[in-house]
């Protein structure tokens, strides 16, 4: 089955991103295809490479990055939600006149149309939120 994922909460405060990660991993192990993982609302905060959780805790961002590298996943952060919350890639930082970017490897920034497309193209869209 072709599955699309929406993550709408940030890391740590809510379990949504952890659950989505475990779900995606399990689905891939079962041979399903993940069309895209879309990060919206505070979910965009999963895509900053600057998180530094204590060493004995999971690192949610690097979990996603490693999974994306291993399975060639498409991790997309919503641009409008990202701009509100200070998640920028190199191009956006330049365009907005900011002195740094923070997007994590394996993530890319794009528009909400990518979420609608995920709904259209996937057999199921699974939402992980609060």
């Amino acid at each position, binding site marked *: 089955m*072709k599955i699309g994922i*929406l993550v*709408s909460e940030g890391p740590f405060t809510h379990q949504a991103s952890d659950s989505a990660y475990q779900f995606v991993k399990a689905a891939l192990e079962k041979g399903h295809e993940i069309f895209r993982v879309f990060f*919206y*609302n505070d979910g965009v905060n999963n895509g900053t490479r600057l998180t530094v959780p204590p060493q004995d805790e999971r690192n949610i961002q690097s979990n996603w990055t490693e999974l994306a590298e291993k399975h060639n996943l498409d991790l997309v952060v919503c641009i*409008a*939600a990202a701009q*509100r919350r200070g998640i920028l890639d190199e191009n956006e930082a330049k365009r907005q006149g900011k002195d740094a970017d923070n997007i994590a490897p394996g993530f890319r920034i794009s*528009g*909400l*149309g990518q*979420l*609608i*497309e995920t*709904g*259209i*193209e*996937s*057999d199921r*869209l699974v*939402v992980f*939120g609060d």
Partner: protein
Amino acid sequence: MSEQEQEFSGSDVQKKFLYLNRRAPYGTIYALESLEVVLIGAAFDQDVSLAFLDDGVYQLLKGQDTKAIGMKNFSPTYRALGDYEVTKLYVEKESLEERGLSIDDLMEITYEDEDDDWAEKPSIQLVNRSEFAAIMAAQDVILSF
């Protein structure tokens, strides 16, 4: 390519999208960011409905005034949804009643029906809890905010 892939990869695919709004308009950003998805999604020519239940019914209250909390009052945008061909706004009757509200407390939201000589019609439909279950079961994609 499987039959299923063919079915979903064409640009003429139309699915039933339901946006489920369950939270008050202010206090969290969910209502505003849900509306932003609806507006962008309208360009994709899908079969779109919005649902308002629990505290989500407050999103449609008339006379919203946000000056004192320093936030943008985005409620006029709901009245423009008809221009985006978003014409089905389901409001749960029980959620209104539980909050001491009736349809008279909600904004008047209308659309022009192109199949009926552009007659102006109400976009809001009151549905009860059991009818809601049927509406949700009929959807292809449900985005919950």
